[in-house]
């Protein structure tokens, strides 16, 4: 009955999309590459090293990494232990790849917990507003006033340190940013007319939250949780480093650093290696988060 408009429908360009992403978002690509490699290394750890990360070898303690042999002519360096060994002779490379499992599991699971808590708090605050918002805001403010490391330390001291406990503590403590972001975004979405349209359809609040709001939250939530994952990994490493995280002899990177600290004068590489691994992992999450954020803004 109406003449249909002839033109629009912009074509989405598919070809050369990957190449474009690489050129335009080098950070995102680099971050995904590093993160991917670390994830793969963690999954296939047993295939990447012949050693068990817990096996001590008193005969070969504090061996330097192989490149110390190449560049500094350190005669102790050997290809048998490419990353050297620690103060009780455990293979550093083996501890590193198995340690990646700990960091990643802590990162993923804690973020799943904190993301869930944060989203529930944030979405209900943003969607319902009013008193619910006041209550959520109070929760967020209270959470922010809690000194994270102190409380985490105290909690570990009280309940004992284990992988599960660390995950739980981090998940229960670090939901604030997810809550703040989901609250803000939900407020913006809730103001828009398609929410009003859904209400005028008689759709229930739960349905509106699940089908109208949640899909629009996915992208910002992914951004914040990726960045948050890096912070959770750092928290675990810090706690382990302070001796109140993952208990020894697990190959947590933080623990490796704590053990290496005793040898700071004799084996400086033992500090450099796990620290660099930690740095790379956290950097990769930051790069991915930042890249996702920039892609979203376009």
């Amino acid at each position: 009955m109406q003449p249909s408009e002839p033109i629009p429908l912009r074509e989405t360009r598919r070809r050369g999309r990957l190449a474009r992403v690489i050129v335009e978002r080098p950070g995102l690509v680099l971050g995904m590459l590093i993160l991917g490699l670390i994830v793969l290394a963690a999954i296939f750890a047993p295939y990447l090293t012949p050693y068990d990360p817990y096996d001590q070898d008193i005969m070969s303690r504090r061996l330097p990494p192989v490149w110390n042999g190449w560049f500094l002519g350190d005669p102790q360096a050997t290809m048998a232990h490419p990353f050297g060994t620690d103060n009780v002779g455990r293979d550093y490379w083996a501890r590193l790849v198995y340690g990646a499992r700990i960091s990643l599991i802590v990162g993923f699971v804690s973020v799943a917990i904190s993301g869930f808590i944060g989203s529930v708090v944030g979405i209900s605050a943003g969607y319902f507003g009013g008193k619910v918002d006041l209550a959520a805001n109070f929760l967020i403010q209270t959470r922010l006033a809690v000194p994270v490391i102190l409380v985490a330390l105290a909690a570990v001291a009280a309940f004992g340190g284990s992988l599960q406990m660390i995950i739980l503590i981090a998940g229960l403590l670090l939901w604030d940013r997810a809550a703040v972001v989901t609250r803000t975004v939900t407020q913006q979405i809730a103001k828009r007319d398609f929410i009003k349209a859904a209400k005028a359809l008689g759709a229930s609040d739960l349905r509106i939250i699940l089908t109208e709001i949640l899909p629009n939250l996915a992208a910002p939530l992914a951004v914040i949780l990726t960045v948050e994952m890096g912070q959770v990994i750092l928290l675990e490493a810090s706690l382990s480093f302070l001796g109140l995280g993952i208990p020894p002899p697990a190959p947590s990177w933080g623990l490796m650093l704590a053990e290496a600290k005793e040898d700071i004068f004799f084996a400086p590489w033992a500090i450099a290696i796990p620290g660099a691994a930690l740095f790379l992992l956290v950097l990769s999450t930051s790069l991915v988060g930042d890249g996702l954020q920039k892609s979203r803004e376009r």
Partner: protein
Amino acid sequence: MTAPLLKVDDLHVRIGARDRQVHAVRGISFEIARGETLSIVGESGCGKSMTSLAVMGLLPRTARRESHGISIDGARIDGLSDRAMSDLRGLKLAMIFQEPMTALNPVYTIGNQLEEAYRRHNPAAARGDARARAVYLLEKVGITAASERLNQYPHQLSGGLRQRVMIAMALMCGPDLIIADEPTTALDVTIQAQILRLLRDLQTEFNLSILLITHDLGIVARTADKVAVMYAGEFVETGTAREVFNAPAHPYTRGLLAAIPVPGKTERGGKLAAIPGTVPSLTDHLEGCSFFGRCSRAVPDCALGHVALTEPSAGRAWRCRRPYLEEAAHQGGALS
């Protein structure tokens, strides 16, 4: 006729980086005489706002301006550095923006922001002078209890009052030209009428030239001396308000006029003459008439070459190979 106050020759504005460049303004030229109102009218995205910002030298960072000359009072301003240009802004030419709610700095009083404009261009003036000028102009723009208002912050005023403050601010240094970019779009209709009337009264009193940017044909018809209809970055029709409204030559102008219901003229409940299709994307190299594809009079030839401006008399022009000329002459303006 004296020399025009503002003269713009072949202005181009390009936005963005090389591969995704938008050619937002594609070679427009116009003149405004002292005391005259030129209105540039067009739909969203036609480049009218970019034109106003280009004249002010306030284009966003990503945009570039090219021209064969922009001059005020015979003096070229297109080659000026931003520093030299800032000496003219507020003094020779001033601007009023669309959003009165955000255009004023929330942390300073009205008085502070008004006086600042004056003192910038009159550094030797005493503080009292600036204050006196501010009070005088606030009263001129119809704000009562002006001296008390000076101590108020923007959030304490309504939108209509803030726009009056913006107008007073533009007048602080007695400029010759006011550029008003959709000055009443954010306001209610009754306030719109009052603000437009205020602008017109001030224009007469101070012999101002006004460049009025708007999408509203009603505003144009009621306020402008000269009209330029802009489409896809170009002027498609120019002339005096009477010429353009009573005898539109370009199919686009005619289409716009036929698309809006006019009480007492359009048949109630009847069909409005909609313009099919959408505006072409300005990223591409445009070949032929930019209105081709939406035009009911188009012939295949219209898609070829560049359509030149036909200028039968000074100031009256259209960019069309098949303009409505005979009809216009016959109808003598009565458009149905």
